[in-house]
C-alpha cells in the first residue's frame, strides 16, 4: 500500500478515536469545563500534560533544529524540561491547593486587585494566541505534505475537529483526548527512532545508539558522534559536539536562552492550569513527575534523532549526482523546503559550511518528517509520523484554546464585568468564547503573520518576565503587595517586549554586537524576569503590607491538608 493510503487510514482512525472520547466525556458544569471537575487521575493528567506541552514545535521542529545546531540545541532540551522542575517544586502544588480555575484567578485573588487580574488576563490571552497560530499552521503543513490536501483545507479540518471536542467536552474532553494523543505521538516518534538507531548502530535504544559505534559502511567501528564531528570538520562546519566555538552561540547567551525557556515554560498558563484538574495536592506533585517522564521520553530521543538525521542527510546527498538523488529528495523538493543550486555546474550536490560553495539549502522543519523516508522505512511508519505530528499540534491547540476561553468567560466576565452571571450562562459563554477563539486561530493559520517563529520567542519571554516571578513571590513571600506585583509584571513585560520588538521587528539589521551583554532576543526574558523580581520586591517593601485575609490565603496554600479542601 502507498504512503498516501496508509496516511489516510491512520489519520482517520486517530481522528475517530478523538471524537469518540470527546462525546463520551462531554460536560455540563463550569467546573467540568474549566478543570475537568478535579477528577483526573495523576498519571492520565501526566500524559495529557505531556501532549499539551509537546506541540508541533517539539514534535516536528525540535530535532531538526538540534540537527543543525549540534551542542547548542541543548537550550531547547534543557529549557523545555528543566522548566518542569520549577513548575513541580515551586508552583504546581500550591496552585492546586489554591484550587480555583485559572492563572488570573490566582493573581487576582492573591494580589487583591482587579488591575492585577486584568494584566494577567491580557498576558494569558496574548501568550496563548501567539502559540495557537503556530499550531494551526503545523496542522496545515502536515495535511498538505502527507494527505496532499491544500494547506487551507487542512487548517479548516483541524479547526472543525478542535471545535467539536473543545466546546463539547471542555477540559474533561480535552484531557482524555490529549492522553490518547500522547500515546499516538510518542509511538509515532519512537518507532522510527528505534528503527533508525538499529539500522545505523545496531543498538535499538536511540538514547544509547547515538553514543555507539557505526555498524556498517565506510565509517564502521567509529563512534557516531566522532564520525559526525569529522564530517563537520571536512565540510567546514563547526564540530557537532563542540560548545562555544566560532559560529555557535556564546556561553552567556546559551545560559540566558536556557533560563528564559525554563522560566517561560513554568509560566505558561496552559501548562499551569493542568495541575488544577487533579484531585489533590499530592496528586499534583506526582502528576508533575509523570508529565516530565512522558515528556522526557521524547526529549531524550530527540537529540538521537537529530544526530541520525544529520548523518543520514549528509551521507545520502553530499557528493551525489543530482540526477541520481534519492526519491525522498525529489518528494520534498516539490514542497520547496529543500533546494539544490548547482553553483559550479558539475551536477553534483555539494554541502558545505561555506556559504559561497554550499549548493544545498534545507529547511530545518523537514528533518523529523523526512527522516523515515531518508532511512527507507516502510510506508506505514511514514504515515504514523504524520498522525503523530497532527496529534501534537491538535492537543496543544486545544489546551491553549481552553485558556483563552476561560480567560474571557471566567476571568473577564464572571469575575469582573458580570459577577451575577449564572452557571448555565457562564458555560454557554465559555463555549462561545472557545468557538470564536478557534476561528481566530484558524484565520492566523491560513494567513500566518510572517513572523510566527519570532513570536514564539515573544511568548516565552513574556511568560518568563510576567507570570513566573509574581506567582513564586505570591507563594513564598507573604510581604509581596499588589503594588509590587503590578509594577513588577509591567516592568518585566515592557522591558522584554521592547527589547524583542526592537531587535526582531524595528532594527533587524542590528546583530549580536548591539545586544545587551550579547544576549539574544530569545534569551532576554531572563533579564526581564530579574527586573520583575527586583521591582516587585523593592516596591513591596515600601508599600502597605497585604491585608490579613490575604496573608491567611498564603498560609493556607502552603499546607497540603488534602482532605479539607
Amino acid at each position, binding site marked *: 500500500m502507498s504512503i498516501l493510503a496508509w496516511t489516510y487510514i491512520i489519520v482517520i482512525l486517530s481522528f475517530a478515536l478523538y471524537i469518540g472520547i470527546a462525546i463520551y466525556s462531554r460536560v455540563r458544569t463550569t467546573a467540568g469545563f474549566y478543570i475537568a471537575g478535579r477528577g483526573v487521575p495523576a498519571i492520565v493528567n501526566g500524559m495529557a500534560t505531556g501532549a499539551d506541552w509537546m506541540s508541533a514545535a517539539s514534535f516536528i521542529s525540535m530535532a531538526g533544529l*538540534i540537527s543543525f545546531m549540534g*551542542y547548542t*540545541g*541543548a537550550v531547547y*532540551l*534543557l529549557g523545555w*524540561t*528543566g522548566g*518542569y*522542575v520549577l513548575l*513541580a*517544586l*515551586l508552583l504546581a*502544588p500550591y496552585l492546586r491547593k489554591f484550587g480555583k480555575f485559572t492563572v488570573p484567578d490566582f493573581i487576582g485573588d492573591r494580589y487583591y486587585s482587579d488591575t492585577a487580574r486584568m494584566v494577567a488576563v491580557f498576558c494569558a490571552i496574548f501568550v496563548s494566541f501567539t502559540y495557537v497560530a503556530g499550531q494551526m499552521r503545523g496542522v496545515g503543513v502536515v495535511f498538505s505534505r502527507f494527505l496532499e490536501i491544500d494547506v487551507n483545507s487542512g487548517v479548516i479540518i483541524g479547526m472543525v475537529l478542535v471545535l467539536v471536542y473543545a466546546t463539547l467536552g471542555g477540559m474533561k474532553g480535552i484531557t482524555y483526548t490529549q492522553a490518547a494523543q500522547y500515546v499516538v505521538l510518542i509511538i509515532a516518534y519512537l518507532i522510527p527512532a528505534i528503527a533508525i538507531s538499529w539500522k545505523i548502530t545496531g543498538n535499538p535504544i536511540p*538514547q*544509547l545508539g*547515538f*553514543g*555507539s*559505534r557505526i555498524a556498517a559502511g565506510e565509517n564502521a567501528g567509529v*563512534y*557516531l*558522534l*566522532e564520525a559526525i564531528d569529522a564530517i563537520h570538520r571536512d565540510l567546514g562546519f563547526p564540530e557537532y*559536539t*563542540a*560548545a*562555544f566555538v566560532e559560529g555557535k552561540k556564546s*556561553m552567556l547567551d*546559551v*545560559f540566558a536562552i*536556557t533560563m528564559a525557556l*525554563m522560566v517561560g515554560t513554568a509560566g505558561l498558563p496552559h501548562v499551569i492550569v493542568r495541575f488544577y484538574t487533579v484531585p489533590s*495536592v*499530592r496528586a499534583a*506533585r*506526582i502528576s*508533575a*513527575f509523570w508529565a*516530565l*517522564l512522558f515528556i*522526557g521520553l521524547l*526529549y*531524550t530521543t530527540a*537529540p538521537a534523532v537529530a544526530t541520525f538525521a544529520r548523518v543520514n542527510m549528509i551521507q545520502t546527498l553530499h557528493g551525489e549526482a543530482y540526477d541520481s538523488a534519492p526519491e525522498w529528495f525529489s518528494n520534498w523538493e516539490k514542497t520547496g523546503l529543500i533546494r539544490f543550486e548547482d553553483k559550479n555546474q558539475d551536477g553534483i550536490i555539494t554541502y558545505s559550511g561555506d556559504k559561497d560553495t554550499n549548493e544545498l539549502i534545507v529547511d530545518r522543519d523537514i528533518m523529523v518528517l523526512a527522516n523515515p523516508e531518508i532511512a527507507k522505512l516502510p510506508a506505514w511508519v511514514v504515515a504514523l509520523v504524520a498522525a503523530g505530528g497532527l496529534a501534537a499540534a491538535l492537543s496543544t491547540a486545544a489546551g491553549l484554546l481552553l485558556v483563552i476561553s476561560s480567560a474571557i468567560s471566567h476571568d473577564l466576565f464572571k469575575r469582573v464585568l458580570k459577577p451575577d452571571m449564572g452557571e448555565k450562562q457562564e458555560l454557554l459563554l465559555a463555549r462561545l468564547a472557545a468557538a470564536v477563539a478557534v476561528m481566530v486561530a484558524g484565520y492566523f493559520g491560513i494567513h500566518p503573520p510572517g513572523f510566527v517563529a519570532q513570536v514564539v520567542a515573544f511568548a516565552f519571554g513574556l511568560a518568563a518576565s510576567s507570570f513566573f516571578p509574581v506567582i513564586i513571590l505570591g507563594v513564598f513571600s507573604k510581604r509581596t503587595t499588589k503594588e509590587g506585583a503590578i509594577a513588577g509584571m509591567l516592568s518585566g513585560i515592557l522591558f522584554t517586549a521592547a527589547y524583542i520588538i526592537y531587535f526582531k521587528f524595528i532594527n533587524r539589521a542590528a546583530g549580536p554586537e548591539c545586544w545587551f551583554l550579547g544576549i539574544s532576543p530569545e534569551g532576554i526574558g531572563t533579564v526581564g524576569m530579574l527586573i520583575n523580581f527586583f521591582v516587585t520586591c523593592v516596591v513591596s517593601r515600601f508599600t502597605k503590607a497585604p491585608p490579613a485575609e490575604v496573608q491567611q490565603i498564603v*498560609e493556607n496554600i*502552603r*499546607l*497540603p*491538608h*488534602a*482532605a479539607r479542601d
Partner: protein
Amino acid sequence: MNGEAERGKVYWRKNLKLVLILLSVWFLSGYVLSIFLVEPLNEFSVGGFPLGFWFAQQGSIWVFILLTLVYARVMAKFDRELEDGDEVSS
C-alpha cells in the same frame, strides 16, 4: 491549636529545605555541568559521548525527572507526618 500551627511551620521549613537542596542539584546538572563546564568535561568521554555534551543532551533530563520523583515522594512523607500529628492533637 498552637501545636497545629507549630507543626505547620515545621512542615513549611522542611519543605523549603527540600526544595533548596533539589534546586541546587537542578542548577548543578542543568547549568554547571551542561553549560559552564561543558568544554573541560568534553575532554572526557563515556562510551561515544563527550561528557559535557552528554549532560547537556541526555543526563540533565534524566536528573530532572528524578528530582520531581524525589520531591513527590519526600513531600508525601512530610504530609503524612503532618496529618498524623494533627490527628493525635485533635
